[in-house]
């Protein structure tokens, strides 16, 4: 079978069509949390599966045929290539359609897009990952990248909070990190009605009491819903973090992912081109950013 995207690549006008989705197969669907499933994809074109590389923090445009296209962060680390893992929350039309697909069904992928985390800048420094709720999705790529290239970074701290234990994304994987010595993995839940949780209970900012952080030599990657930003940023600033050491991953409506459709622009920046990773300095300079 010849896929349209292979044929198209030879069309004189559309040879380099940045909107062309490449077909990928869903190889695994893991029901991590209710309405937050982890989809593992592999490109149908082998060469693409081998060659696709991304930077942690980047995203792809995912097409669910007949339903639409949407931006989704790559949750897997480039240090573990050949497949893409996407952690998708079910919220609307396209995500609903995705949830109706089964393994072996096909979707379209184009990308990777966005700036990703400034790895070379972070290299040699401490790394603090702070996430709440679905914010773990983009951070997970960075987490495994850092763990797989452990020598590039100094101390690594992860702070992650969810509402209840059953809401925690990548729970098995992350609880397994708690005992490791090469990372300070701090996990918390707001409440534990089931009484099964063996880590912290309490709000996310409380985890700062359990971490040793040197603000001047640490880069903090933060991601989560607006409340998380609000409280974490406040703590980081209190600690004296330089504003350009705080890295935030932003969500905006996006229709193209490549700086054309205009939806994701904030002031004078495009989330899809100059973001989705912005520093706190950008944030205070851009109106309506958070």
């Amino acid at each position: 079978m010849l896929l349209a995207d292979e044929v198209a690549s030879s069309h004189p006008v559309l040879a380099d069509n940045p909107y062309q989705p490449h077909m990928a197969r869903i190889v695994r669907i893991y029901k991590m949390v209710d309405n937050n499933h982890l989809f593992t994809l592999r490109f149908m074109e082998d060469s693409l599966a081998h060659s696709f590389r991304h930077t942690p923090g980047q995203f792809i445009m995912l097409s669910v045929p007949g339903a639409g296209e949407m931006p989704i962060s790559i949750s897997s680390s480039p240090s573990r290539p050949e497949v893409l893992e996407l952690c998708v929350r079910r919220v609307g039309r396209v995500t609903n359609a995705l949830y109706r697909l089964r393994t072996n069904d096909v979707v379209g992928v184009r990308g990777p897009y966005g700036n990703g985390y400034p790895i070379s800048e972070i290299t040699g420094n401490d790394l603090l990952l702070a996430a709440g709720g679905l914010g773990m999705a983009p951070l997970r790529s960075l987490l495994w990248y850092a763990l797989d290239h452990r020598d590039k970074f100094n101390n690594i701290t992860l702070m992650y909070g969810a509402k209840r234990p059953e809401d925690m994304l990548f729970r098995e994987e992350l609880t397994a990190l708690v005992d490791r010595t090469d990372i300070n993995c701090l996990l918390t839940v707001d409440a534990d009605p089931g009484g099964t949780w063996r880590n912290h209970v309490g709000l996310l900012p409380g985890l700062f009491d359990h971490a040793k952080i040197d603000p001047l030599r640490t880069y903090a990657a933060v991601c989560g819903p607006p409340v998380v930003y609000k409280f974490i940023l406040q703590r980081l600033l209190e600690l004296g973090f330089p504003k350009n050491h705080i890295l935030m991953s932003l969500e905006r409506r996006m229709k193209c992912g490549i700086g054309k459709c205009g939806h994701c622009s904030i002031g004078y920046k495009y989330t899809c081109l100059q973001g989705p990773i912005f520093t706190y300095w950008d944030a205070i300079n851009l109106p309506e950013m958070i």
Partner: protein
Amino acid sequence: MKILKLPKEKLDLFASVVQQFGELHAPVEQDGKYVFKRLTRWSDARLEYDRTILPPKKYFLPPQESIFRYRPGEGFVPVTDGLDQRIILFGVHACDVYAMNILDRVFAGKYRDPYYQARRKNIAIIGIDCLPDKNCFCRSMRADFVDHGFDLFFYDTGDYYQALVGTALGDDMVQATGSVFEPMDAAEIDDYKRRSLNKRRAFQLDVEIRDLPEIFEMEYESELWDELGDKCLSCGSCSMVCPTCYCYDVSDDVELGSRAGDRTRSWDSCLFYDHALVGSGENFRGPRASRIKFRFYHKQRGFVAEYGRPSCVGCGRCSNACPVGIDVVQVIDRLRRVEDVASR
């Protein structure tokens, strides 16, 4: 650049010859307004028009266009219909050419938009100079003159047109007409200068755009935005008629009884409620005031940071098309006024 002259009585000849390069489109009258349209006869063309309802962008980024067709088992097949159609747009004003030059930059860069670029390649532009009316402020926006982005550009100098040849294609058009184009002499250069001066004097509007970005930043909280928010209908008219508004939306549909369907992109506007609404339910520009502010901010300030100049070219279309009379020039004037700042 080659500069020639074309006696006015030879324009008809030129128009008939030039059709060998593509389908001829020009402004035609529609109930007292003008629209770019395919000509059925040359005499329908109205070269002394004020402005068309929609700018030429409709040719390059159509209001609605299907970009892929999805077929199960095949994937997304790009739609190429009409992309290689050759069209000649006759009679494009400088501000509109300038606007295309701006769009060129948006649709180029690291990710070239192949649909736009293909059309840009296949649609020739023959510009024509014009005199400003009471809504034009292209001079303030430095878009009253263009030095590229057209194949030919005509200046009406009374008895003849001065023709700037912008591209090889433009030159081919000149050649194809035989020897009706003539070289210019010194007196005619003076004609040009005179006309240029007259045009400059004809502007009734003047907007100062230097340090506008800074003023926008300072006036970010001005109550003007709330006033505009109360008036604005979010009807999107301004964005549709703007030669540099390029926001688009993309949607997929399916055919009856199948998963096959089209992926269509259509014009969008930052004034629509859901322009900045995300899946989590957060709306970054929910209130109408913040949406209308964004439109001005992005055009007059955001674009400067991105591309070194405002994206507004001063064509006056949005002020004309606003049912509630929101007017860019007045908005900028208000922001610049000193007492405004003092009263707050």
